[in-house]
């Protein structure tokens, strides 16, 4: 037997109803029967959502029955558990939703004495629990005493789908949208009828549109030509799958009309226009990926552009300053448990400060003795980088640290169904631009910037004009280091926070600065972003490793062509 994949064998199982083997598989797949069950749950819980008080009054909970329901969950076989979930969905128990949620979260467990409990916090060796039936707190229990009711992904999907259908009737638009999203491609004959009614009453345009599409996919599968009109222009992958199937005409037994050439042609035509738009979207996506990678490179390199470009110091410990910024973020989150977002925001000034102070220490401790010996600053700061790494390894831990991504930075925003931009990277992109703008302002508009430029151009002259070159050196180095710290704060949201963090970025940073032209912040920006885009354009075509190699070779050749980078500092060539 062959089934339309998105519906899965489950649909057929529900339809055939007799095939034992299919039943076995049914519980592992998203099935439409499950939606039907969920609908019935929705009727119960949906009511309780809209009128909670009334719902509670109308369904007195029976603890003995509840115990039977839960006990059915405590079996090894996941298919059997699926049936038990089904039973809970069907029960009128008002606590059912809580149980399902706890089950979904893996917090529904059975204590040694046979009671079912909900674990409130499952970190550490002893966990606080409460009774699943009465809701009373039962204090702490050792994990040895507790047996978890395990679920797997199939059950997790089953639970989610059930809750999604319930949410279709929820008051909250967000929940309805999410549930409408889930129904795409999962509508069958059982759901088609109720769905049509829901669409009529749905006030939110987006939810309605989604539901219309969901229904249209079902209608298309039934061979209905008009359904294609509702699907035209949608970029959602499931719509595309449905159209592709209709276009190929390979869907057997769907309906006699399934191979109807008119439907197939119409579907093909709709599909073609969708593919065109998808190509555009992919290009936009690649550009975004490139810019986002580029922004990371810019962030990592811009501090280096200051210390290297302005001061002529080759700071190999730059990567470790980035690492310090990232560890500062981690430390802030440790200091402010439960408030990762606030901690992250506070980490921006803190990361800057920590890295800047470290930078000052490096400048005073080592670099000031190596004035005018750039290649030797390279060696000395390389030593510092080793020390800093090992310091973190022995002082904190050789293991990576967990930095939590705050809620508002997780996920992505959907531009359309095919293109969504990940939020964390968007924030980093924005952050990079802001940092760049602020740096430009500092260099162009402040006294420090003026002095820095003066010292860069003619140290002796600047000194004779009353600029304290030493102080300018310290400030410049602190600024460059602080910006590295900022990069670390941003990187903590993208990658590992561990002792090797810095090493992964130092070579790339140098490439960006050299490519852009030393001493030119604009060069760094352009170089970073363009290298990012080049890399991401090459990657699908050449693979990640080759893309990197190609970029490196490109830089090497480019430097041969233009030894001073993209934006060289012009002027009468220095003598001697």
């Amino acid at each position, binding site marked *: 037997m062959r089934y339309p994949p998105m519906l899965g064998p489950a649909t057929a199982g529900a339809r055939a109803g007799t095939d034992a083997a299919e039943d076995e598989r049914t519980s592992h797949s998203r099935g439409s029967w499950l939606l039907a069950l969920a609908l019935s749950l929705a009727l119960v819980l949906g009511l309780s959502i809209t009128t909670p008080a009334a719902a509670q009054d109308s369904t007195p909970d029976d603890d003995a029955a509840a115990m039977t329901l839960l006990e059915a969950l405590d079996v090894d076989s996941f298919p059997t558990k699926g049936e038990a979930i089904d039973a809970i969905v069907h029960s009128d128990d008002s606590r059912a939703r809580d149980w399902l949620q706890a089950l979904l979260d893996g917090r529904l467990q059975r204590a040694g004495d046979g009671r079912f409990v909900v674990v409130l916090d499952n970190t550490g060796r002893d966990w606080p629990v409460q009774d699943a039936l009465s809701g009373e707190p039962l204090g702490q229990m050792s994990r040895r005493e507790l047996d978890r009711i395990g679920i797997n992904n199939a059950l997790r999907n089953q639970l989610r789908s059930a809750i999604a259908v319930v949410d279709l009737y929820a008051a909250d638009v967000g929940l309805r949208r999410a549930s409408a999203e889930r129904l795409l491609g999962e509508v069958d004959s059982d759901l088609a009828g109720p769905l049509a009614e829901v669409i009529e009453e749905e006030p939110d345009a987006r939810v309605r549109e989604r539901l219309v599409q969901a229904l249209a996919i079902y209608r298309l599968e039934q061979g209905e030509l008009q359904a294609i009109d509702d699907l035209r222009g949608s970029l959602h992958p499931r719509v595309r799958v449905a159209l592709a199937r209709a276009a190929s005409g390979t869907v057997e037994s769907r309906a006699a009309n399934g191979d109807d050439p008119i439907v197939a042609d119409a579907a093909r035509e709709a599909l073609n226009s969708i593919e065109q738009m998808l190509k555009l979207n992919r290009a936009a996506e690649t550009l975004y990926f490139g810019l986002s990678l580029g922004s990371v490179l810019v962030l990592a390199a811009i501090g280096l552009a200051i210390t290297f470009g302005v001061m002529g110091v080759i700071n190999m410990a730059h990567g470790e300053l980035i690492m310090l910024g990232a560890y500062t973020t981690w430390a802030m989150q440790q200091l402010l448990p439960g408030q990762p977002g606030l901690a992250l925001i506070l980490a921006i000034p803190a990361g800057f400060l920590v890295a800047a102070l470290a930078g000052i220490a490096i400048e005073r401790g080592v670099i000031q003795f190596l004035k005018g010996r750039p290649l030797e600053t390279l060696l000395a700061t390389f030593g510092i*980088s*080793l020390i800093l790494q090992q310091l973190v390894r022995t002082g904190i831990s050789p293991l990576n640290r967990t930095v939590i991504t705050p809620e508002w930075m997780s996920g992505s925003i959907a531009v359309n169904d095919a293109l969504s931009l990940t939020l964390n990277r968007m924030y980093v992109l924005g952050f990079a631009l802001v940092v760049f703008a602020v740096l430009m302002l500092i260099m162009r508009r402040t006294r420090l910037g003026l002095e820095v430029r003066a010292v860069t151009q003619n140290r002796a002259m600047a000194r004779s004009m009353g600029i304290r070159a030493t102080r300018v050196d310290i400030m410049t180095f602190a600024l460059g280091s602080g910006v590295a710290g900022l990069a670390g704060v941003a990187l903590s949201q993208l990658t590992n926070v561990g002792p090797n963090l810095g090493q992964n970025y130092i070579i790339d940073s140098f490439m960006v600065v050299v490519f852009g032209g030393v001493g030119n912040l604009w060069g760094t920006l352009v170089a970073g972003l363009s290298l990012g885009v080049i890399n991401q354009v090459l990657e699908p075509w050449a693979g990640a490793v080759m893309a990197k190699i190609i970029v*490196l070779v490109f830089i090497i050749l480019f430097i041969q062509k233009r030894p*001073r980078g993209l934006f060289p500092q012009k002027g009468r060539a220095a003598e001697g």
Partner: protein
Amino acid sequence: MDSSRLWLLRPFGERSTLIFLGVLLAAMTLVTLLHVAVPPGHPLYVSAYTVNLFGKYLSYALLAVAVDLVWGYLGILSLGHGAFFALGGYAMGMYLMRQIGDRGVYGHPVLPDFMVFLNWDSLPWYWYGFDMAWFAFLMVLLVPGALALVFGFLAFRSRVTGVYLSIITQALTFALMLAFFRNEMGFGGNNGLTDFREILGFNLRSSETRLGLFLATGVALALGYVLCRAIVTSKLGRVCVATRDAEARTRFLGYRVERFQLFVFTVSAMLAGLAGALYVPQVGIINPSEFSPLFSIEIVLWVALGGRATLYGAVIGAILVNYAKTVFTGAMPDAWLFALGGLFVLVTVFLPKGVAGLLALRLRRRRDADGSFSGKEASA
């Protein structure tokens, strides 16, 4: 006066070559005697393990000499010499792989094991010829030499100098590392080349062969040293120093600086390749991590510690640092990176002339105290 350059005032030590060769010969003889003539268990006995260790140090020393030639005398801080070392090592590794013949686990007469289980059906063209020792040994020199020639031609022609050059040499070795990590390259990917059996018909797993390799490395070091010495004491060597200190001036004197740079860079790369080729049979494995930029920077530290622009200093530095590494990573693994990092800082800040500089200073003081100034001409 530019103080940063003054410490490089007299790059050419006088009797150092003879003393160096003497010490090297004495050490090689001593180790051989203690290994062969003293019974195991005797406190003076030098075990095969130690002989092997010394052999490794000597190949590192040769590498350091090669780096010193370009950095000390030509002023090019190459952060990519590990690449030439590794390429020489790979050339040797390919020869040793082919020598395994059908004794690999799959018993394939031609393909190395890693190719069999990654389903290569025939030997890639660039593996041809490596079953012949003369070809492989030639490649040990030619492959790094050719890479240096091409890279140097491009870089020096367009006058990429100083920091820029350092950074693109780093990019070079980094790119090569990534490339060699790729299994498609046909060099064994991350696992590299290993499980060698014999070299020129000698069993690599016997202590006699290891002693032989140690001695061969010593001889190679001596020859490499003499060659470098000949270069740096020639007029060409003085042109190198001139280029290092005032490149534009040298150009205006009519020297095609980029050709001199290319020549010395290529010679140095070939020496590094030779060092790599001697290193591989002694440690029994070559893998892309030898290409890592970190290793290349470490080589520079050996030279800096020993004393830049003194060939014997490079040897001292390589042996000192690696001996310290052996001891430290055994005794206090955590402290090793602190020690290495601290060395980098201390040497560059407080000991710019390295160990050799300290010695030279001592000698000069004694000489100055005698009131006799050696106004020796460079023609010696």
